């Protein structure tokens, strides 16, 4: 294979084969290959029973499928142990788990929490809550208009009283990669931990939590070819070990008395109630798909498509692409504005041309305000997209201003 660009593999995705539209909203959710859809159904057809509870063969098979899936996730991000892989509902619930459990027990008045200004609300609002509850100070780390965080800004924000730093590996607005190695090493030098939002990075680029020395990493199955309703929290074992449970109830206990309880071992301590075993099984199938095609191959194709789209989009008059002028720092995400046209009108016009893109604030209102805009349109790519789809998209974008009554 070498450095050649792989085929789009569209035949693996039933919705892409039947949809008469260009799906360019992959940062919101990816499409699902047959193997994932089949796995979800297969669990209910062959394995359905409540895992982790009972001692009959069927339940043991369900437990095995659940725990084998955990091992598959562990390998995918190179965690040390399956104890470090907690299944949740989505990346948002993973981050909330850390905020309520680690945050509320480790942060106190006088401490500082640092949140990158480019965060999705899901890695911002939980930290606002921890700051409000504990009286800690909330400091926002600011990037420039290309989405770049300078070393000076990192050093300014991460101080000896900092306890937590929250940052996305890749921004869902600009596609910029944050300097997470620098942020993590600076945080660790100040005895702080880092909450990484991997929702946009884990699906598109190889993740190695040991190499990163990551403390916490959250991501969602549905953005990486898997089903909706499953998220992952990676946490270092020694951190998770000391944290109190987040949700309490079934399956997360060791023993229960009327006035007290002791809790199950990791990771089950954090998986209260019946789990989404079918969804986890389907996520494991999505990871198999990644391993078969090769995430590096997918990333190379996505970089190729991003560059292809960037070159055309950025040349359209009155179109402003947000973030870096280097297409390789967009990771498939191209947010843009069109002079004097509201993004909702842009997406309405594109919808009529059978193109699916996102419009609005992308759940990152403070970031857009920091960039001096209220809302934008966003196209986001996946390896299964094609040059033809991008051409169609670019042509439609180029027609918008005329349609809205502007004379150019």
């Amino acid at each position, binding site marked *: 294979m070498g450095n050649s660009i792989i085929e789009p593999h569209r035949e693996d995705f039933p919705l892409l084969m039947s949809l008469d539209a260009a799906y360019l909203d992959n940062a919101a959710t990816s499409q699902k290959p047959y193997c994932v859809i089949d796995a979800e159904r297969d669990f209910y057809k062959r394995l359905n029973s409540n895992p982790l509870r009972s001692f009959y063969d069927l339940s043991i098979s369900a437990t095995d499928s659940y725990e084998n899936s955990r091992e598959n996730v562990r390998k995918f991000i190179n965690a040390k142990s399956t104890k470090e892989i907690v299944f949740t509902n989505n990346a948002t619930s993973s981050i909330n788990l850390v905020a309520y459990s680690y945050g509320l027990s480790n942060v106190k008045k006088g401490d500082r929490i640092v949140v990158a200004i480019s965060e999705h609300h899901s890695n911002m609002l939980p930290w606002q809550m921890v700051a409000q509850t504990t009286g800690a100070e909330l400091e926002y780390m600011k990037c420039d208009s290309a989405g770049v965080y300078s070393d000076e800004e990192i050093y300014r924000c991460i101080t000896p009283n900092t306890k937590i730093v929250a940052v996305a590996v890749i921004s869902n607005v600009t596609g910029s990669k944050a300097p997470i190695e620098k942020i993590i090493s600076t945080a660790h030098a100040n005895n702080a931990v880092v909450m990484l939002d991997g929702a946009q990075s884990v699906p598109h680029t190889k993740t190695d939590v040991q190499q990163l020395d990551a403390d916490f990493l959250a991501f969602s199955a549905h953005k990486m070819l898997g089903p909706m309703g499953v998220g992952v929290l990676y946490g270092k074992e020694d951190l998770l070990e000391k944290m109190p449970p987040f949700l309490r109830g079934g399956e997360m206990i060791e023993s229960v008395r009327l006035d007290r309880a002791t809790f199950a071992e990791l990771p089950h301590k954090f998986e209260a109630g019946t789990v989404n075993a079918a969804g986890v099984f389907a996520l494991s199938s999505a990871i198999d798909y990644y391993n078969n095609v090769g995430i590096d191959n997918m990333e190379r194709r996505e970089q190729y498509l991003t560059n292809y789209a960037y070159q055309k989009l950025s040349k359209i008059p009155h179109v402003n692409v947000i973030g870096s002028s280097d297409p390789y720092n967009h990771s498939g995400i191209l947010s843009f504005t069109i002079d004097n046209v*509201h993004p*909702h*009108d842009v997406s309405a016009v594109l919808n009529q041309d059978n193109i699916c893109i996102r*419009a609005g604030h992308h759940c990152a209102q403070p970031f857009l305000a920091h960039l001096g805009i209220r809302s934008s349109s966003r196209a986001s790519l996946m390896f299964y997209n094609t040059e033809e789809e991008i051409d169609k998209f670019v042509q439609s974008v180029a027609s918008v201003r005329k349609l*809205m*009554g*502007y004379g150019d």
Partner: protein
Amino acid sequence: MNSRNFYNEVLTDHNINPAHKREIENPNFELEGVNPNCGDDIILKLRVDDGIITDGGYVGDGCAISQASADIMLDLVIGKSTEEARRLAEMFFGMIKGTASDDEIEQLEEAGALKDISHMPARVKCAVLGWHTLDDIIDKV
């Protein structure tokens, strides 16, 4: 409904060259209207004297439909009594629901250019933002 045809001249003209997107002198009623899902946001200001809307203006940010609709609305209600304005608002809501008669749509004058919104559920909230804000202001008059 096809969006390509939907953005007709009446709508694009009111969006690009709004007559009432401005601060007015001595407003005595003011209200903000927001569509939290899409971020459309207008602040409507009226001058009401003896039950008559003598002047009105709005400022805000939003899609062409929300902004043009507010502008067309003010064209229609300035100089009319609050009762008449409310009657027009109800006609407009009826038009959006697809229940207004041709005669009622005619009374809405240029606002009738938005009648096809009734076939575009995703954009209904944009079209009615100004009118709902007006309706809420009249409650306070």
